[in-house]
């Protein structure tokens, strides 16, 4: 295999992986802070896709309809997430793990059928937005500009989130609550508000991923099931609760998916699961997570 084809395979795997990073980052953040594994995170992603479609149809007459959708859809998802957190999730933080899972699973059902009700069952599409259409060629390989845009977005958001967590007051508050909730509470931090905020941020990221994905794919029901499994794999590899872990995990998964089909097509489907099992046995807190 030539270097060029290797590189193009790598790039294409990464572009998808980074969209998954956005979702996994939200999942990891929520777990890290609130110890809740949000099974419905893939569904928030799907809601983001549908809202993106809805907004871009709403603004269809003005130019740059996609950009408006990209602006509003994740906010919409964050709002929905916030409402659900206050109404439902808040009550089960003290409960056993099983109840949290089952409740977030119930959200999958409710949101999924909600989308079915508002949007119907057929799939939707969105065109690639104006300045990002077409492809560039370098080294004899042509590559769609939109995929490169996704890579840039993913890296930018990763850097932004890292900076947010490390250098801002908000980040410090979130980290404090993550490390020691009771102490943070004692110091006057409004912990329930932080929880709601973190959940909304996680949903915002999932919604953003949902809005970025449609131009290169389709908007369809059922996407959440596939996505959530991939996200589990990413956060296990990277470490539950770690942002950089989610990034590394997403890169590794993108790599595995794109090279798996080249090298070992038969086993390619099972590979990610096998890696997940391996990590869970050998180093359950993942590559970047902290041991419990």
């Amino acid at each position, binding site marked *: 295999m030539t270097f060029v084809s290797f590189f193009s*395979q790598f790039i294409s795997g990464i572009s998808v992986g980074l969209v998954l990073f956005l979702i996994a980052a939200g999942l990891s953040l929520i777990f890290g802070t609130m110890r809740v594994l949000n099974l419905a995170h893939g569904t928030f992603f799907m809601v983001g896709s549908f809202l993106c479609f809805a907004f871009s149809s709403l603004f269809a007459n003005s130019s740059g309809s996609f950009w408006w959708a990209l602006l509003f859809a994740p906010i919409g998802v964050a709002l929905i997430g916030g409402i659900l957190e206050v109404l439902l999730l808040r009550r089960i933080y003290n409960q056993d793990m099983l109840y949290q899972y089952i409740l977030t699973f119930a959200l999958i059902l409710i949101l999924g059928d909600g989308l079915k009700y508002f949007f119907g069952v057929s799939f939707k599409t969105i065109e*690639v937005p104006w300045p990002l259409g077409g492809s560039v060629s370098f080294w004899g390989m042509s590559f769609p500009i939109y995929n490169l845009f996704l890579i840039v977005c993913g890296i930018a958001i990763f850097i932004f989130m890292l900076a947010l967590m490390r250098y801002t007051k908000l980040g410090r508050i979130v980290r404090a609550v993550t490390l020691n909730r009771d102490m943070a509470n004692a110091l006057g931090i409004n912990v329930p508000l932080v929880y709601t905020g973190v959940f909304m941020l996680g949903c915002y990221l999932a919604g953003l991923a949902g809005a970025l994905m449609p131009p290169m794919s389709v908007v369809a029901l059922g996407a959440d099931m596939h996505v959530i499994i991939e996200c589990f794999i990413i956060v296990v590899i990277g470490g539950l609760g770690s942002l950089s872990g989610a990034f590394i995990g997403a890169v590794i998964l993108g790599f595995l998916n794109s090279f798996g089909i080249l090298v070992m097509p038969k086993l390619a489907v099972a590979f990610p699961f096998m890696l997940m099992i391996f990590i869970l046995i050998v180093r359950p807190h993942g590559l970047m997570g902290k041991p419990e």
Partner: protein
Amino acid sequence: MKKRFVSSVLALIAVLCLGVTVHAAEKKPIVIGHIHSMSGALSMYGISSEAGGSIAIEEINAAGGILGRPLKMITRDDKANPEVGLREAKDLVISENADFLTGTVSSAVGMAVSSFAKKEKIIFMPSNAQSSRMTEDEFHPYIFRIATNSVVYWGYAPAIALANTKKVKKIISLGWEYETGKTALKQFKEKYLEMVPDAQIIDELWAPLGTTDYTAYINKIKNSGADAFYLAAVYGGGELAFTKQADSFGLYDQMLAIQPCAGDIESWYTVTKGGPFPKAALATTRYPFWAIDNPRSKVFVEKYKNKVGQYPSYGAMNHYNTIYALKAGIEKAGAVDTEKIIKALEGLTLDTLIGKVQIRAYDHQAMMPTWYGTMDYAEGLPFPHVVKVTPIGEEGYHTIEQIKKLRESK
């Protein structure tokens, strides 16, 4: 006098009751159990099939029904899941007294319902599901198909089309990794290598069923050195996603695309001119209504557009033809009697929306034609389609000898 009066009133009431019962029995509807994918990724096939069937039923009922009895269609969602489809089939027969079963698009569901139909001795007419196994090695007398099958759809028609146009030598295939996908490639290879012996399939790529992200595969195809690529059983939303991604990578400019399913318009309802579509792809289509000069077909297209707001696809046409075939069979048999209807349908020539087609007695398969051509936009239609069509007829199907061999080797 009073006694006589009372008894005559009673007699009158009795006669009225009898009359009503007889009348009700006569008017008891013939129930068609329609199992299809009404939700999920394949739902547009289910919706179009249901609409096509209900147009047929409305027409037939307006003309007095079949043997004086009205037709009734009950639609159930199989969710593209054979377990669910089987459950619905059982329910339709046991609880809803279905007399016939139609529908299904997923071949797995079709096969499951077919085996149920065999056990229950009820006629099943798959109007979308293409698996040729249903009429070949898994054949039983209760199955009839008034539609193409996978041999034609995925295999022989694209192969013949390719051999008659651009005899490419190096082909790479990409398909969904399940039985239909594997069989599709097998049939395509079978026919194409027979017609162009020095051609070769240089690689076979398989993606999980229902994949929507093909970037890695597209890259591999681009670097493969093939002259053309063939899509094995990739349809619906997955096909649209593939097309968008392939278009953005410039794949359609680099090599010839053989996309059998591209001729079916369900995938392109949401595409607008200027958007990505399989440019210049070699495609096959089963209902090129824009090129068919049949007055009944034109009426059907209008009715369908008014009903659904979109143009009809082959799934709608198949179900329409299937219902009319059932009507022809029942009327020829003279009764709603399964064994008589089977005898009546075997060898019967049907008057379908695309002309006269005969049901081959050996495998109960109607010899429905297919057309091929290249994909483009043309005047009058908002979606990309096969503009200039060339027909393929019976040569697209397995011959009786081939089927005999398959059945014997089972």
